[in-house]
């Protein structure tokens, strides 16, 4: 897949925070100012940041559900159809007998459920993710990054605000 780093750069400011509360403050302030499409980098999920960003629940769960149900249906469908497609009698048991097929259906439920979940994440967070946003390696280490897409005129004000919120570093990213 295309890595974001390779695509067209988005102009804006990239701020690094050491303190989580500072970052959270900054995010709230920016959102209050109408900056909606911020990008926040953290090394691990963080409650304060999540609260500050206040996202809606991920749609992944829906995909998981559909995947699981598909698997279940496939499991019963396949076993029963194959049993009657060429009926062979074994051990005096019914040609198509549900109880043993539950096992197959169950396993396929899990399998397709899991695979569709991962597929969903790949889709939502990488393929459909924003491109060309500036990034700094230390965000995967111990700092929190906040990227504010902002054109030349607003840039000053935003930078001012980020610094006052406690950003240890603010970088301007040109287009």
């Amino acid at each position: 897949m295309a890595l974001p780093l390779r695509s067209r750069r988005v102009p804006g400011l990239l701020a690094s925070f050491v303190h989580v509360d500072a970052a959270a403050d900054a995010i709230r302030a920016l959102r209050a100012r109408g900056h909606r499409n911020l990008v926040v980098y953290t090394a691990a999920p963080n409650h304060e940041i999540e609260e500050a960003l206040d996202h809606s629940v991920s749609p992944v769960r829906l995909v998981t559900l559909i995947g699981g149900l598909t698997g279940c249906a496939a499991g019963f469908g396949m076993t029963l159809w194959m049993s009657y497609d060429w009926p062979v009698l074994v051990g005096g048991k019914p040609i198509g007998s549900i109880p043993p097929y539950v096992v197959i259906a169950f396993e396929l439920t899990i399998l397709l459920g899991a695979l569709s979940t991962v597929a969903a994440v790949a889709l939502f967070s990488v393929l459909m993710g924003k491109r060309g946003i500036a990034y700094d390696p230390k965000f995967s280490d111990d700092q929190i990054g906040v990227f504010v897409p902002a054109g030349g005129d607003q840039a000053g004000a935003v930078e001012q605000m980020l610094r006052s919120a406690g950003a240890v570093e603010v970088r301007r990213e040109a287009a």
Partner: protein
Amino acid sequence: MADETTASTLDRRKFLTVLGATTGGGALALSGCSTGKVEKLVPYLVQSEDQIPGLATWYASTCTECSTGCGVHVRTREGRPVKLEGNPEHPVNRGKLCSRGQAALQGLYNPGRVKGPMARNPDGSFQAITWDDAIARLAAKLGEAGSRVAVISGAGRGTFSDLLGDWTAALGGRLVRHETFDREPERAANRQVFGSDQLPLYDLGKARYIVSFGADFLDTWGAPLEQARGFAAAHGFEGGQVAKLVYAAPRMDLTGLNADQWLPIKPGSEAALALAMAQVLVSERGGQPAGLAGALAAYTPALAAEETGVPAATIERLAREFAAARPSLALAGGVAAQHAGATEVCAAVNILNFVAGNIGETVRFGAELPAADGHAALAGLARSMNAGEVGVVLVHDANPVYTQPRATGFADAFRKVGYKVSTSLYLDETAALCDLLLPQHHALERWDDLRPRAGVYSLMQPVLEPVFDTLPAGDILLRVSQKAGGALARFNAPSYEAHLKSRWQALAGELGESDFAAFWHGALQRGGVYREPPAAGAVSLALENAQASYTRPALGGEGEFTFLTYPHPMLYDGRGANKPWLLEIADPVTKISWHSWVEVGPGAARRLDVRDGEILELSTPQGTVEAPVFVYPGIRDDVVAMPLGLGHTAYGAFAEGRGVNPLDLLAAPSGEYVPYLSTRVAVRKTGRYRKLASVAGVARQLGRGIAESIPLAAAQKGLTVEQAYIEAGLGHHEVNTERELEAVHGWAEEQHEATQYGNYEGENPQWAMAIDLAKCTGCNACVTACYAENNIPTVGEEQVLKGREMTWLRIERYWEGGEEPGEPVSARFVPMLCQHCANAPCEPVCPVYAAYHTPDGLNGQVYNRCVGTRYCANNCPYKVRYFNWYKYNERAWPAPLHLQLNPDVTVRARGVMEKCTFCIQRIRGAQNQARLEDRPIRDGEFTTACAQACPSDCIVFGNVRDPSSRVARLAQNPRGYRVLEDLNVRPAITYLAKVLLPAEA
């Protein structure tokens, strides 16, 4: 042709070459490759009248594996014999055939056969020569030898033996008819007691009470198939009766294991017992020739008790029962008739039969059974050989160098003969010493006949082109005669076949048959001519000779044990040892295969502190052998026994160097018998150990009701096995509530409904089997038949040690009692094969449907589909599934043995599971036939190989859905039960419980 065949491995071209060489394989051969033989072959443009590719052709012939002379039917496919079965019309065996007879096929295709005439070089090696050369050499030697010619031949009587007789006589030589287990002592006793030189026929079928003094009449003595048939009739609960069989011998052989009571008498004391019984009879019944009473007076039960170790009371009871049951029958044979006192034993038994009034009833003279010349003749010959009075010796159908105890010094005497000639098919011990090998045709390759008894003329006909470059023995004689001329010139028949025909023309005349062609073809078709044997010649007690006498056997040697040896049930006197079937299919008594063993009683084993497999050294003044112990509950604690038949020094790759030969221990004979009981033996523990190649796991039923039994009284009342138990207070009814039953049956019904789909809808036949344990004697004939029919590989000793034998059908032998010292021990036999369960546990666990249920109730096994998970075998409660751990299919049939394979049955590859198919190839064959003739299958028009072979007809196969079928009726028999019925696997095999006579003190 011979070279192609011998060189042939199991590749298609060679295979077809050989087919091509055999009559009728023409079309195949043409599609095969060109050989020197091709121009002789007839393409199927001109169909040879008795060959239809893919269909079997049957020829009638005669078995020559022993001197009994049973009739056989040879099943050939594309000109290859693939199976031997009994000839139903033949009066001796009535369609049955024992293991040894069936294995003749492996003698025909044996890799160890002599492939053509050979002469010995000065350096001792053999060199192939032409027949002309060979004939010339023999003729020349005969010329030199003049009358200093000796011929040793088998006991079989017929045109050839007559010719051989005349021929030898013409030379002025001497002919010795030698049979390893000759019955000379019986004949001697008959001369003494009845003034008759004959061997009588014993009609076990009529007997109501049988006492056998060591006669293994079910397996290795007399005419086993005929006797087994009679025994089944007498002892098999037919008409609600069971004739009691008492077996008096120091060791139980197969007959002993089928006895209702075993009297473990001291070795050699049979005469005392028989005479005491006669004495009791005479003294209590009187009415006998007065002199007899006097002659017997001395032999009181007290004396017999002293001699035999059987309580006097038992002897008296025995005598009374014997007298009360009319007619009864007493038999003497086996070891009892092969020791110094043998003639006394046989005489005593004759007297016993006479006083019980059995002569003419169950003992019928007049059949003129062929008898060998007795041992003295051979001993005499050996003496003159030693004396250098024999210039040329010709050995035919005999292997005396092996079958004579070393102590007789026969081999050395034989070596001294100037020119030694053998017609043996194999390089056996005798042939190995010979100077000239003139391999004769196998019985299936030649024209010949046998006269097994008065009124029975049994024909042999060639059923395939000779596998090797051999000649019929008759032609050898005739050609030599022509070459040698002189006294022999008169043997001028163009061929032995012509000679045979001329003899049969004479026979036709005697029998008042005008149209010879019809007579001849009839005989060919029916396997011979069968006339009623002449009315039983009346014999009377030749009183003056009826010396009732008993002398305690004088045994040579030192040591605490008396040594016995006996014919091996599979290998007989050793002639079976080159046939893998007979080596691998376990001895029915000990269940040991492939090697020798020494039997030690449980008490003796405790005393010696030995266990199964511990190697003992047995030594007598004559020699020393080592063999592993088999602790055998069926033998006295003061006796050890070993089977004959192994320890070959020649006789082909299968036999050589396998096991030991107990004959080396025996003392030299001094009379008309080989003394199989003659010496004590010193036993020494070697401290070494070997695993026995035994097919037995745990030989106790552990109360699992596998081989069920029912008391006679209960059976006569028509009780079921369970009812009988309850009556005896040994069980209780499983009481199920209505609800339970309804639940179970309702559920079963639902399940059944759900299976009615596709091919499974509607009424199909349901193949089923019934096995009557009251008749099964455990003789192994069915097992061998199964091997032959289904291309079952023999896996060899090293695999049998890993329990990997492939016996689709095995005979389990469980001990009953005998756990406490002194407690009587008995055996139960149960043939165990795939039960073709309706709810087969093996089927649902197969991931690929390789094991599945056919609409006609068979438990199918698709070899091609099997991936070898072996779950089916784990889940089979009967453990009747067998796995191909190695490429057995490439090892089991070294060329030309592969020619015996049945083309109707897949040869299974490595890595797949296999098991009994209920001979599905026979089922489908019969169904196709019925379809062609547009009719339903008739019950009994075909059957499985095992059922076909069973000498006592204890196996019945058929469609259980057809209420009129035998199997359907037997399935309803009150004695019927299913093994492990509680598992609800619903087997298709119904076993009929063995009927037990009330136990006695």
